[in-house]
């Protein structure tokens, strides 16, 4: 069945789609927002580590489910395996209203000015698709600020000399350091570094009608029981719905962007919560489904002018899949540094994001979120027994005695790391699934070695008695920080959208999510995804004329 036409249909109610829905609905456009998941409720999974989005041993609490979804993973040796959403190789983000912003750790980093022009800062890297963004930090600055104020960020950059210029301070004061954080701050300061409180999309004081954080140890990977953690589900989406201009349809799985023979997007074909095929016609189509699912949807949308998928005539859709390789160092320490105050990550160090001699890029370091007991089983120095009495002894002796510094390495884009569509395997609705293949760029090993050694040097200075590093690997990137598969650019031959997220050659088809990222920074990417969603929305609102775009 087909619904009446609306101005805009948006696929995905996560970090990007939630913001676009609010911006367009407030501007007076009629909006239908399609989301495959539903509202996430704290009560259903509470503080259960086995149903945390971080360790989903018994399935993803915030979706998608293992029953109806699957992907194909291609190993470096060419063998393939069908993987389920709760398995690591699936590269899941989340599938619920708010997307990853319901259960994330909520670090609110702006990328640095250099992150938008890596190629011109550092030059070419062999066998990579390293490129500058078509927009600058200055272009995005007002939209970073909007995200910080509308979603809500607590922070203080007094001691961070490396961040880009900002016009306004953070809307909320920073969170205090925890015990582990204080130890790292003392040490790093002594070493001439510049530690500062991690900016967080989490209320340090009551803000926007929601209360302050109550510091659950189960925070990252979980929903917040008091809504102190800010996502699109508890900030912009309620505003969008209150306008009366935005209809949210849950349990809806997009199958195809309808593109007519003249190359215009006409709407979206999807399956509703009763698995019935539906069509939603619209003046413009916005895809905000995450770097993996957005690419899949475009590739599954074949039409006369785009026989290889929407916007894919130059074969760039799905390539350059990035995420973050996390590296760092751990140390065992005499002092009990564990504090029953979640989420645990409190201190950031940005000294190593850029300006590292002989290295392209770098990365941020932060102390780690609280590891719950099951996850802690893998926090071990090399060679430590995995089981038996030695395992128990380690758990008992060190659970509250670990100092950790880890961080995301800025990845070098690799054309062969990609999302394609599997020729044979389909999901429960008969839609061809994502096929993930390739590896990280070999250069990332250099970045990872560098950053983990910097972390190791700091941890050694904290007084830890036994210190070990977690180094990099070439394993295909993606996961929660997935990005890069529909990069923006000025040259249609080497990008998928223009600088406003508008797909080349299909002027009423837009993208607003991590897919647009040309490079993915040495930081958690969510605030950049949010800022881009405001940036793309602003462009649409400015050019909107009645029922047509431009």
């Amino acid at each position, binding site marked *: 069945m087909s619904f009446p036409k609306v101005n805009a249909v948006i696929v995905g109610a996560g970090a990007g789609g939630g913001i676009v829905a609010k911006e367009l609905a407030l501007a007076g456009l009629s909006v239908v927002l399609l989301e495959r998941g539903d509202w996430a409720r704290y009560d259903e999974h509470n503080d259960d580590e*086995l149903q945390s989005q971080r360790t989903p041993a018994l399935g993803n609490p915030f979706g998608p489910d293992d029953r109806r979804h699957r992907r194909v993973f291609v190993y470096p040796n060419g063998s393939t395996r069908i993987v389920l959403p709760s398995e690591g190789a699936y590269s899941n983000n989340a599938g619920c209203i708010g997307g990853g912003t319901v259960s994330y750790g909520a670090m609110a980093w702006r990328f640095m000015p250099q992150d938008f022009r890596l190629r011109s800062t550092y030059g070419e890297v062999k066998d990579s698709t390293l490129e500058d963004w078509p927009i600058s930090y200055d272009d995005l600055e007002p939209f970073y600020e909007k995200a910080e104020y509308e979603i809500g960020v607590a922070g203080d950059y007094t001691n961070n000399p490396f961040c880009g210029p900002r016009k306004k301070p953070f809307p909320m004061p920073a969170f205090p350091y925890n015990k582990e954080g204080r130890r790292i701050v003392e040490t790093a300061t002594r070493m001439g570094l510049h530690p500062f409180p991690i900016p967080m999309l989490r209320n340090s004081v009551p803000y926007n009608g929601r209360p*302050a954080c109550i510091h659950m140890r189960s925070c990252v990977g979980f929903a917040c029981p008091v809504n102190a953690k800010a996502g699109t589900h508890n900030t912009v989406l309620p505003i969008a719905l209150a306008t009366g201009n935005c209809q949210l349809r849950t349990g809806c799985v997009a199958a195809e962007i309808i593109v007519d023979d003249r190359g215009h997007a006409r709407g979206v074909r999807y399956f509703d919560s009763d698995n019935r095929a539906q069509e939603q016609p619209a003046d413009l189509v916005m895809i905000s489904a995450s770097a993996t699912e957005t690419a899949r949807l475009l590739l599954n949308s074949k039409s006369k002018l785009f026989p290889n998928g929407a916007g894919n005539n130059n074969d760039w859709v799905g390539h350059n899949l990035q995420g973050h390789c996390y590296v760092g160092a751990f140390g065992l320490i005499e002092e009990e540094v564990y504090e*029953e*105050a979640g989420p645990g990550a409190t201190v950031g160090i940005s000294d190593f994001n850029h300006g590292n001699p002989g290295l392209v890029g770098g990365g941020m370091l932060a102390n780690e979120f609280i590891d719950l*007991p099951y996850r802690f089983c893998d926090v071990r120095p090399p060679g430590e027994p995995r089981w038996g009495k030695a395992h*128990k002894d380690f758990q*008992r002796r060190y659970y509250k005695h670990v100092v950790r510094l880890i961080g995301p390495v800025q990845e070098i884009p690799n054309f062969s790391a990609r999302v394609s569509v599997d020729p044979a395997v389909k999901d429960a609705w008969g839609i061809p699934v994502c096929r993930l293949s390739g590896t990280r760029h070999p250069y990332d090993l250099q970045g990872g070695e560098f950053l983990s050694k910097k972390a190791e040097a700091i941890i050694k200075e904290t007084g830890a008695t036994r210190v070990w590093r977690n180094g990099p690997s070439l394993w295909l990137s993606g996961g929660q920080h997935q990005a890069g598969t529909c990069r923006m650019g000025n040259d249609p031959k080497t990008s998928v959208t223009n600088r406003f997220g508008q797909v080349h050659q299909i002027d009423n088809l837009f993208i607003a999510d991590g897919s647009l990222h040309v490079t993915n920074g040495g930081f958690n990417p969510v605030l950049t995804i949010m800022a881009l969603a405001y940036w793309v929305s602003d462009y649409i609102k400015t050019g909107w004329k009645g029922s047509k775009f431009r």
Partner: protein
Amino acid sequence: MSQDLIVGIAGANGDGVSRRTVLKLVAVVALGAAVGVGASAGITHWGRTAPPPYRFFSEAEAKLLIAICEQIIPRDDTSGATDAGVIYYIDRQISGPLARHQQSYRLGLASFRKTCLQVYKTPFEELAFEQQTDALRLIEEGNAPNDLWGDPSQKAFFDLVLDHTRQGFYGSPRHGGNRDYASYRMLGLAYPNLIGQNRYANGRPI
């Protein structure tokens, strides 16, 4: 009869019925006790009564798996895998969300049994604790006779049991393991993790 009802509750919880539903059922049981229907057993664990039957494992498979899990997390001055009910966690989950591993358990346990009979001429459960440790290490490292193993391989089977034992020991008690919060007590973690139970007030440590 009341015991059946209690077993039913635990099962429903593990199958994904919400905690609220379970609390309602518990309330019904409590009411039953109050009006003298005869519900006298504790409702937080199996108490003194016989443990429930297994959903997937045969008695012989369960006996072997219990011994393997106890090697992975042995009892010393604190509880081990057997005390914590890890076998019930695994049995329940591979009858539910982890059903994809059923075949691995069935075939893997059979290969494991054959391995011990061939190498030690004795069933694993009857070996001395130190010999069990050696046998398990042999399999962990892939050094047992390979002709006794197919899919899963010996290493893959060990890794599977290792992971599920950890889950059962350290996960939420609502899935059948971590009985009496054994692992949380061992680590000195407060439980239940009450909302608002923390050392902060107004954003400052107190």
